[in-house]
């Protein structure tokens, strides 16, 4: 691993960490539990496009574990891990198909993040009625996915050369 890449990965990890902290400090509450802007996903998607699948996955897991231990509790960490992994897999596959732009990939990521979280919440809390949140969370996922995707495209364009 080149020194440049190590530094870059470290930078992205720190950035994702800080974004998570910001979201933790200022929860954008729209009345539905689990709906977030997903700022940290911006970093993951940038990593996916500038570094590749493997590093992006590492980054995603490291971020969740770090944030889980620092600001959240174990239960929240499990929710995030489920959401994060599902979201990551969806994004990686979507990117591979070459049919979607960054925005589309990000939308898929946002939507699957919410699906993952709600699935785990349903299992942990043993209430199927949480599925009622699904339509709202799907739409919230689209909204945040578009926002993050547009931002991510701009960042990726500018970072593309640095990471090589």
């Amino acid at each position, binding site marked *: 691993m080149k020194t440049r890449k190590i530094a870059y990965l470290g930078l992205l990890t720190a950035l994702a960490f800080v974004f998570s902290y910001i979201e933790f400090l200022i929860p954008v509450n729209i009345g539905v539990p689990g709906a977030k802007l997903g700022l940290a996903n911006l970093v993951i998607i940038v990593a996916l496009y500038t570094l590749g699948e493997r590093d992006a996955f590492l980054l995603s897991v490291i971020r969740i574990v770090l944030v889980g231990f620092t600001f959240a509790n174990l239960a929240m960490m499990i929710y995030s891990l489920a959401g994060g992994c599902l979201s990551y897999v969806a994004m990686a596959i979507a990117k591979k198909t*070459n*049919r*979607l*732009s960054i*925005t*589309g990939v990000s*939308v*898929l990521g946002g*939507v699957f993040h919410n699906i993952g979280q709600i699935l785990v919440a349903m299992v942990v809390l043993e209430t199927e009625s949480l*599925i*009622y949140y*699904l*339509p*709202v969370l*799907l*739409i919230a*996922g*689209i909204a945040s996915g*578009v926002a993050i995707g547009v931002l991510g495209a701009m960042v990726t364009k500018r970072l593309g050369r640095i990471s090589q």
Partner: protein
Amino acid sequence: MQENQTEKKKRKGDVVLIAVILVLAVAAYVGIKFYQGMSTEEPVAVVTVDGAEYGRFPLDVDVTEKIELPDGAYNILVVKDGAADITEASCPDGICVNHRAVSRQSETIVCLPNKVVVEIENGEESGVDSMTN
């Protein structure tokens, strides 16, 4: 030019994806609403005898049912004006007969000697002590 075309194709893919998810969200919403409509039935009085379900009596249908037990004991259940009541029984204490008519969620009439329980399901919340339910 080539680059531009794939970009365009991807943009189209994005729009299709978002449209599909939107449709799914709306479908899920409609489906859930429909499911809720199915499951929130009319209130019913559920009669159980010695733990086994004896019958269900919708509260909006006036009916008089004689609940007969194998040993000859009986309770007469009357559903009237959206409430269930036991008006006559063979049991010695008559507690179930004296009990007022029930219509709210989870309200019960119990006849211990005959092991008959009348419970309201899908009823309106009473609002008085719903916290203790």
